[in-house]
């Protein structure tokens, strides 16, 4: 890792009144200039770029504390609006001593609604309307937690790591409980036979179950803005380079199709006893 050499200890650079005063005036100047173009509500900003408010987590503070490593570059700390507002709402919920709102944001606030719409627009339709792949490959993807960390390579396919948070099959005991159990997902939603499954494959556009399940996998934030579930099919634009399938998302189209089969195929371990 090419780490910038930083000094947190030396006494010589601890007090710089001139610098602080300069930065303050610069910030005031910048705020003044940017005031006219300010269209975003204040609540959509979690990381400040002014650096004058002690309570703000500002950009320079993050630059002092983190460094790019491998594919995990500093761009990753630039939040999109969804990340910013969900950070802020969770932060404020604990500050007021209220329960966290990250799990269920039913706020009908206009901004939240528009952000949900923005996320909904990112749900794409798979090529040739093929929504289902192979459940055995889906199971492997659900087990695999690799990808996108600073120890991973850029072209490596990522896993979905579904078992980290969900129970999915009867056989796998090592599952997390951050998300709901998905054991019996298809069966309990009426996909009880191969004939019914074949029907879903034939007319996926007509099935709310197929559309909802696909949508949750591609972009969970379209349904619950601040859900802890990642947006598996949404491209992360600032990612440096594509994986071997050519996507900047966590999972590619084929992997998402395989997970669809894992969840809905009546023969998959999810739907078998």
């Amino acid at each position, binding site marked *: 890792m090419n*780490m910038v050499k930083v*000094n*947190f200890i030396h006494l010589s650079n601890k007090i710089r009144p001139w610098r602080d005063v300069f930065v303050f005036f610069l910030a005031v100047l910048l705020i003044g200039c940017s005031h006219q173009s300010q269209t975003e509500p204040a609540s959509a900003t979690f990381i400040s770029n002014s650096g004058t408010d*002690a309570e703000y987590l500002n950009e320079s503070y993050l630059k002092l504390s983190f460094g*790019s490593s491998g594919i995990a570059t500093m761009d990753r700390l630039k939040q999109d609006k969804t*990340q910013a507002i969900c950070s802020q709402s969770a932060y404020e919920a604990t500050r007021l001593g209220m329960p966290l709102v990250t799990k269920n944001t039913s706020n009908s606030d206009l901004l939240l609604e528009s952000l949900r719409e923005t996320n909904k627009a990112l749900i794409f339709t798979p090529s040739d309307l093929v929504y289902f792949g192979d459940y055995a490959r889906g199971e492997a993807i659900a087990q695999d937690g690799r990808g996108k960390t600073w120890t991973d390579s850029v072209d490596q396919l990522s896993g979905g790591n579904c078992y980290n*948070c969900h129970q999915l099959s009867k056989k796998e005991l090592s599952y997390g409980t*951050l998300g709901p159990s998905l054991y019996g997902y298809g069966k309990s939603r009426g996909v009880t036979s191969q004939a019914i499954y074949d029907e879903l494959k034939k007319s996926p556009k007509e099935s709310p179950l197929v559309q909802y399940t696909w949508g949750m996998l591609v972009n969970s934030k379209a349904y619950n803005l601040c859900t802890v579930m990642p947006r598996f099919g949404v491209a992360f634009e600032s990612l440096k380079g594509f994986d071997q399938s050519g996507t900047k998302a966590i999972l590619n189209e084929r992997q998402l199709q395989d997970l669809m089969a894992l969840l809905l195929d009546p023969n998959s371990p999810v739907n078998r006893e």
Partner: protein
Amino acid sequence: MYPTNTGSIRSTYKDAVLSIILVALVGIAKAQSGSLEGLTSTANVQKSEQSAEQSTEKAIAQYRQMLQEANPADLYVIKGESLWNSARGPKRRSLASCDLGLGPGVVKGAWAQMPRYFEDTQRVQDLESRILFCMQDIQGFNSVDLVAQDFNTPERLNISLLAVYVASESEGVPFNVPMSLPQEKEMYKIGKKLFFLRAGTHDFSCSTCHSETGRRIRLQDLPNLTTQDGAGGAYGSWPAYRISTGSIWTMQQRLSDCFRQQRFPKPIFASPATIALSVYMGFNANGSEASAPGLKR
């Protein structure tokens, strides 16, 4: 028809052994709690899911208890104590005069009151960054070089050993992380903001996993770091011996690997953000007893 181990995902020997032990323990727990009910109705499905859940948790608790009997960290504490008292570095001096907040040379109970603001550096410092300062100030080590190194370089490993020794001298002492000075309050606020900062490819933050009680990632219990119990049990047990890596990890290293899994860029050792997070967790832990060195998966 059922796919059998085609993925070779968790292929390490350790994991295999661990799985076998767990499966065996789950079997025992299930036998003790009576036979599973049939999966005939929805009510029964839920009921048996709950009982399977409980027996899994019981098995994990048993496994942990078996491990806790002999903690290899004790050996590292002895090494760390010896390092603390050895004349080292360019200045050939020991750390015996290092001030950890309770006065020069006082180690007993010092960690339970860290991170804290230090007059001499005019900074809030955590355990590792304070040790780093003493190594530079007293022994003449170059802190800038040490910060740039990885966790497993010889002198950085020494910092971990020193940290596990110092922390062990607070075992059983209730945390009393000070929060009276504006610098400490500011660090707490920043730490809390960082805790809720969602970013990166996966939208993760610390709070994704650590803001609810009773959740698990795979089989690993997740402490709720926003509560006294959660922060006390988790923050209070690092530095710890990690079985999966066979080494001592400090809180700095624990945080670094959390950020790796969060898909964030790499936190710089002893940086303000890492200290701020420890202030947040440490203050939340106040009142709970320090239990480091812990024993981890």
